[in-house]
């Protein structure tokens, strides 16, 4: 692959990165709230422009990024991220700073990603999950950033994801933070979000 074949990154690296960061900050501060993220990127498929923008804004040579099975063979996405961020690609999701999931049905269990330590719970993986749809219905959450309760669900996801979310919260302050990205929108479920258990 030649450098000239790599898709362009941000048009305005300073202000685009800032805008994307604020969108992610807003998403994590308001769990379950779905917000539009207009990223002017055309990354190689199957990468969405939203997920690509999040990684371009946050990853650099100080971080590792793990690409899931849907991508590791895809040298174009790997090359795109390596070229624009300088991030090291992690061979395992277990110790990556960021994980990019494009086939959520087959993603590793949340508990197997880096969870941080009791003293340093921040040393954990932030998982960017590409989904096809998100909606403010389904699971119900409460906790920091949520005025009362919020309903949120995304698809596709692993069948036992509700149980995984409850367990992720139970490990608090250890745990992983999730950022969901459709082709146009983003939303987040930080580890602080508590899921209402239903039978």
């Amino acid at each position, binding site marked *: 692959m030649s450098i000239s074949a790599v898709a362009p990154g941000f048009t305005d690296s300073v202000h685009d990165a*800032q805008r994307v960061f604020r969108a992610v*900050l807003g998403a*994590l501060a*308001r769990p379950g709230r779905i917000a539009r993220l207009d990223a002017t990127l055309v990354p190689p498929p199957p990468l969405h422009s939203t997920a690509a923008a999040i990684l371009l804004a946050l990853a650099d040579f100080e971080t590792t990024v793990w690409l899931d099975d849907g991508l590791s063979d895809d040298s174009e996405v790997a090359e795109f991220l390596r070229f624009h961020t300088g991030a090291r690609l992690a061979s395992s999701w277990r110790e990556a700073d960021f994980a990019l999931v494009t086939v959520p049905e087959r993603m590793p269990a949340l508990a197997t990603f880096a969870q941080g330590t009791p003293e340093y*719970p*921040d040393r954990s993986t*932030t998982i960017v999950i590409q989904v096809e749809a998100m909606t403010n219905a389904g699971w119900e959450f409460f906790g*920091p*950033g949520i005025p009362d309760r919020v309903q949120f669900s995304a698809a596709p996801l692993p069948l036992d994801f509700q149980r995984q979310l409850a367990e992720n919260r139970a490990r608090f302050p250890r745990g992983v933070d999730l950022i969901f990205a459709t082709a146009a929108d983003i939303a987040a479920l930080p*580890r602080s979000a508590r899921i209402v258990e239903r039978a």
Partner: protein
Amino acid sequence: MSDAAVYNFAYLDEQTKRMIRRALLKAVAIPGYQVPFASREMPMPYGWGTGGVQVTAAVLGADDTLKVIDQGADDTTNAVSIRKFFERTAGVATTTHTSDATVIQTRHRIPETPLREGQILVYQVPIPEPLRFLEPRETETRRQHALEDYGLMHVKLYEDIARHGHIATTYAYPVKVDGRYLMDPSPTPKFDNPKMDMCPALQLFGAGREKRIYALPPYTRVVSLDFEDHPFEPTKFDRGCALCGAEGIYLDEVVTDDCGGRMFVCSDTDFCESRRTPPRAAAPGLNEVPR
């Protein structure tokens, strides 16, 4: 103003901003937990808000409107210098009106005008660790936070009661965040503690010298520590502001002569001025900051 061209936007380089942004995202996901970050040397001394400035620089965008206060005032040295710093390095719009600002950097006060959704309040923090004066070892306080072992702080407050008959802590009054982390609200007067609870704005804390960032997402439970028989009580004043007459707000004592003369006025200058000059459009210039 044209100096903006010779600095990167908001002074910091992009790699530093990304590092701070990653720390901020962790801080929001773990409310009240102190995230270590690689604090940079800033063109101002420690103690002047280097932590707050770095946090502001990392979140600020070209379309933001910035307000900076020092002990509630827009017109004191620290506030003016930091506001000018961002005018020069980022070229952003600035204001003194709390309701017009999207990002507010503060040293030790929360504005009297209630904050709203979408606003970001950035605190300058000198000592982020609430247990530091009780336990000097970082390894030990880390473990205490990990085990949620906060008995030492209750002993400290109890000793206050044993000695003074009441909890004598009046600023940097410790709080528990979402039932988990003990947090130092920075040296804000305890009068402001109730404003932190379920606040609609996002609150970010930066400690430059101590290299720590922590955060309170909007709508987060923030409880001031107390005892059943000695409940937390915010500071109360037995008078109103001598200038605008407002009551139930935080007052500064101002010495007016050398014969014991003094007056009590609003600590929040924007709040006081807006009460004395309604409607705002009729009296332009009063709140304008000379550039």
